[in-house]
């Protein structure tokens, strides 16, 4: 069985899941969603005007027909105009996605690498004080609400009650000539990054420690130790490579969650015009075209990530593909 066939089969296997997520988002957001007829009409509409708008929104069509219309919107990426901003939804998202990536990427990478390093330190000193200290702090980190971390970071680093080093809110990363400026970027991205790292560090460290501790008891590690390999080689080459599968899963799976959940709070609190802020504003205003686009697209993205993960596993562990029927 070659890799291409494997990838193709995985993609076909993802179709029921894609069907499910689009069906649920359609049912919740469009079918049971609020009736938009009167939002689009002026005062005192005539009966024909009402019928026309209802027809253009597809309200006179049966369930499956409307579902197919929604799928068509997802495939062509054409969701019409936002109700609040009078701008095509696709255009809104095109502007917002790069901002969210720029905002979240550093924190995401630092958060994961730092967590792996801390977990490694904890596993190397299992049961001793570094392990206990690291794990105590990760429980404390897990217990502080995201909200409190974000507000606290802003208070400490950005406000006049704290260090007052960085701007309180906003995202002016371009200089006067519309050029991307690294200095301005650092200025705006630092505090959200610190917050993001603090949010994820507790959970990640605990997870990675559990994974590493499981692997460190295995025979191949004992053998390597008996052969007299250095700690450096045992932990960072042998151990890390063998735990790559759960680590990849964790990282990939958290991507869609980080994009939406992480950015929702961070961006709405720091006033950064990314996907999260758009989502937040759409939730508050009940902007259905934007919400159905975001819900549908992220769900589809997640399924694609899922399929991507299975293909990646095979690269790291050829046994995985072979054992499956």
């Amino acid at each position, binding site marked *: 069985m070659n890799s291409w066939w494997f990838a193709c089969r995985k993609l076909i296997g993802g179709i029921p899941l894609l069907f499910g997520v689009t069906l649920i988002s359609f049912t919740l957001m469009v079918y049971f969603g609020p009736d938009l007829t009167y939002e689009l009409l002026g005062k005192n509409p005539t009966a024909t005007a009402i019928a026309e708008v209802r027809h253009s929104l597809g309200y006179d069509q049966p369930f499956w027909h409307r579902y197919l219309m929604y799928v068509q919107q997802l495939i062509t990426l054409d969701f019409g105009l936002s109700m609040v901003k009078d701008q095509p939804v696709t255009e809104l998202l095109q502007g917002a996605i790069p901002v969210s990536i720029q905002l979240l990427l550093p924190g995401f990478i630092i958060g994961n690498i730092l967590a792996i390093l801390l977990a490694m330190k904890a596993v190397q000193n299992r049961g001793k004080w570094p392990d206990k200290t690291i794990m105590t702090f990760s429980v404390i980190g897990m217990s502080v609400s995201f909200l409190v971390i974000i507000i606290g970071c802003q*208070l400490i680093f950005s406000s006049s009650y704290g260090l007052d080093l960085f701007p309180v809110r906003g995202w002016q990363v371009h200089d006067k000539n519309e050029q991307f400026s690294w200095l301005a970027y650092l200025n705006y991205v630092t505090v959200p990054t610190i917050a993001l790292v603090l949010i994820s560090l507790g959970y990640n460290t605990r997870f990675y420690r559990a994974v590493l501790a499981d692997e460190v008891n295995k025979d191949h590690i004992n053998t390597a130790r008996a052969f007299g390999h250095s700690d450096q080689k045992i932990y960072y080459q042998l151990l890390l490579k063998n735990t790559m599968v759960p680590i990849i899963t964790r990282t990939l799976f958290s991507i869609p969650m980080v994009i939406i959940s992480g950015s929702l709070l961070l961006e709405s609190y720091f006033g950064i015009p990314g996907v999260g802020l758009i989502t937040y504003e759409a939730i508050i205003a009940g902007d259905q075209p934007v919400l159905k686009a975001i819900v549908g697209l992220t769900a589809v993205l997640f399924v694609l990530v899922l399929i991507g993960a299975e293909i990646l596993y095979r690269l790291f562990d050829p046994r995985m593909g072979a054992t499956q029927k």
Partner: protein
Amino acid sequence: MINEPAHSRLNLSLWQQSRQHFMKDRWGILGLLIVVLYLLVVIGVWFGLWGTEWSAISDDFNQGPSLQHWFGTNAIGQDIAERGIYATQVAFEVGVVVTVFAIFLGLLIGALAGFFNDTWIDGVLLWLMGVIDAIPFYLLVAAVAFAMQGHAWAMHLAMIAVFWTTTARLIRAEVIKLKQLAFVEAATAIGFNPVHLLFRHIIPNTNHLIIIQATIVFISAIKTEVILSFLGLGIKEGISWGLMIAEATNDIQAGYFNNFLAASLLLFILVIGFNLFSDAIQDALDPKLQKNHEKK
């Protein structure tokens, strides 16, 4: 096994062993004490002993902590301690409702999927879990709130709809494992009714997982309620820690931190208490760890 003396150390039942293990865990006991303390606070609110004045407005705006107002007052002169205490009860209500329904749903669906694995029932149920897990949580809540047009229970429903899947997956895996054990095979061989077998003999063997999952769901529900209420998707009438933090964002800019600190501290202490408790019972109920314990 039932007739053996329960007092000899080696013949303790699994539950008794777990309790012994738990009692030795100092952090777990601390967590339990914190949870019990909060529970007493909640019961007091139910009986109207305290937290009754949470909405009363007075002339003392933005006061610092004093004997009369333990955590000070907010911008319209409400006592922050009273509000925090009342919000504790709101948080517990959300936690209990979500936990009970999510665990029940997860247990039922997980057990069915596991019992009928290799049939289409398992396939459909697994598909359903995959679909729900694929939609980012806050968006699903927004979608449910949207579909229910801002109904007061939209948040609870959305959390239940999301939180059952983890429990269901765990129970499913456990039931598949149990199905292959000799006692189930024997019961099938002597012609037990499968429904009876599932509910009387297999599900009771997943109790330890249910207890662990319940504590985890409870923590998630309380933490999530705070964030959703802050975003305007959660509690709308009354007060919750999330709403207090939302109020506090304005106070903070004016330099008043009482509201923010009170709500965050109450939340933090409860969550860390519950986390410690949850970790301790996970250790105590984990059969793998217990074996290691005995070997020593």
